């Protein structure tokens, strides 16, 4: 079986699903037997899901409106 270091070396590509089936099999076998790596993998995956679903950095509609209005006012002024 591969070591934790070897697992960690492939971890980034594994998260990105950029990995060959053979390596994937090795990694998954390691995950099934190593609690520490399993926790690392599981929590990182959850982190990514939380981040992706969080709709972070959405601008409040009022702020968006203000900016767009200002831009359009400038453009109209430039055109007239």
């Amino acid at each position, binding site marked *: 079986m591969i070591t934790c270091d070897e697992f960690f070396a492939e971890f*980034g590509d594994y998260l*990105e699903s950029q990995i060959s089936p053979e390596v994937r099999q090795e990694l998954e076998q390691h995950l099934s037997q190593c609690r520490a790596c399993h926790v690392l993998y599981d*929590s990182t995956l*959850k982190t*990514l*899901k939380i981040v992706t679903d969080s709709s*972070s950095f959405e*601008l409040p509609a009022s702020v968006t409106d203000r900016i767009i209005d200002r831009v359009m006012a400038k453009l109209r002024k430039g*055109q007239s």
Partner: protein
Amino acid sequence: MAFLREVRLDDQFGPFVAYRANYGFVPNFFRAQALLPRLIEAQAALEGVILMEGKAFSRIQKQKIHLVIAAALQDTYWVTARIATLQSLGVSRFQVSQLLENLHQAGLSTAEVALLDFCLKLSLDWQTVGLEDIEKLRSHQFDDFAILEAVLTCALARFFSVLSAGLRPEPDFEPYKLSAGRSAPATKVPDRRSFAHGPHQHGRKDPYIRTVYLSPKTFAPFAGVLKTHGFIPNVYRAQSLRPDVLEAASSSVRAILITADVLSRIQKECIFVAVSAAILNSYCVAAHCNLLRGFGLSPEEGDQIAFDHHQSNLSKADKSLLDFALKLAVRPSEVCREDIDGLRALSFTDEQILECVALTALSNYVNMLQIGLGAEPDFELPRGYEQNKVHLPEAEARHTKEGLGVLPSAMAAEDPDAGLVARAQAGELGAFEELIRRHSSSVYRALMAILGNPEESQDAMQDALLSAFKHIGGFQGRAKFSTWLISIARNTALQRLRDRKDTESLDEGVEGEEEFRPRQIRAWQDDPEQIHSKSETKKLVEKSILGLPSKYRIVVMLRDIEQLSTEEVARQLGLTVPALKARLLRGRLMLRESLAPHFTTAAGKAAI
């Protein structure tokens, strides 16, 4: 006074010690580059192997080649310097001035005249150099070693002349006045658009001269080349008779092109592509467009930079940098202090300008070698060339279609914004407003990713949207409108970073990502998103992301919030894909570390 700021280097700086020992002084040419000592080391090494080592020609012969090229390029610095060196080697002032006035009547042997004629042709009129010129040299009993050494000597002369034109060091001696009747260099200002018809096909397999096999396993410079290109390009193979030069050249490439602590690697590759295109060398355009693709740039964008960078998505500042590089490459004698001040006004530092000059010089060197040695094309040409069609810059293309708003039909079919874009391009403000409303969230996130500060991002958003309106006429539907708009936002933000000199967050650097190991090993709850309310979770995520060091924040936001592909993120930031991946993993793990206290099995409703 030279153009750029000078600093004093340590008395023990290797190349300076050597110059003091050999000449009794340090040439101003090198002092003018003291801001970046690595450039001086690279050039000193290359000068050493080409002018001092080679056995085919004497030092005097090579100094003569440099003298006539410098004179033809109206390079007072090098004319003065070479005259001094020739005199120190025992050549009389009379012989030197004969050489400068009319080399055909300077009492030289026919072989020597043929050699100098070849060198001048290669330096000034390279487009016309072909196999017949090499055959002519052979007919004068020059062998392959000699031909290679002649080409290397010419390439180095151009390398040095571009640098002196861009830096304008004071001559080290009383400057030699070139005779007034001398005309400006015969170099034509080439039209890049005619370049698709340039001499790309020679119908040969091998370079003009003999090559030997150098194994990348035992010859370190080729190992580096292999790593960069995936194979050994012909332009390197063509120099295999001189492994010593290849070694020095590979150090120069490392020092000037690959080290990216001043200009980014993408900026550098863009300079390389544009300069190669300007001197009509499709080989080097193909090679470096290829590298740009490796950094995630689309073939179309590389293409656009080669044909007409003004129509590319580069920032205004980067376009001006390329303008400067092109002027330096094709009209070196016209470069003046105002050009330098113009770049400074765009917030370029003297280090960056120096690097741009060195890079323009290096690309001249490589281009001259490829042309002089007849290295066959072995890179895939950008798409425009394959179809052998000439790209008109977009502005002109539009005129030919009589009026604005004509979109390629391919776009109309795929991009949901196509209709609005056409109307906005025709000047309809309402359509433009609708477009920016549709994409305002993505624009804001793109700005936040890079700037990390809400107020500044809102401010930049206004600039980005105005800039989008200004440039929408140039949008040609090769990418989706949303992609184009967001890339404008990103360029706006990156420019702000550069303006406030915060390039640390973008630089590649060696950062020991591999040493980072996660510390939190407590398991997380099964359904972590249920622990906190949606708005609490959002706050937590935003706080954690903004708490990351900026270089990690940028990659995490572009990849995980904006959901760009890794290649796209690498391209945007000028990182290689492996470097980006390493940074992304580290950023994600840091984020995990910072969120963990709130989501592990032990976490209750922890205070935020």
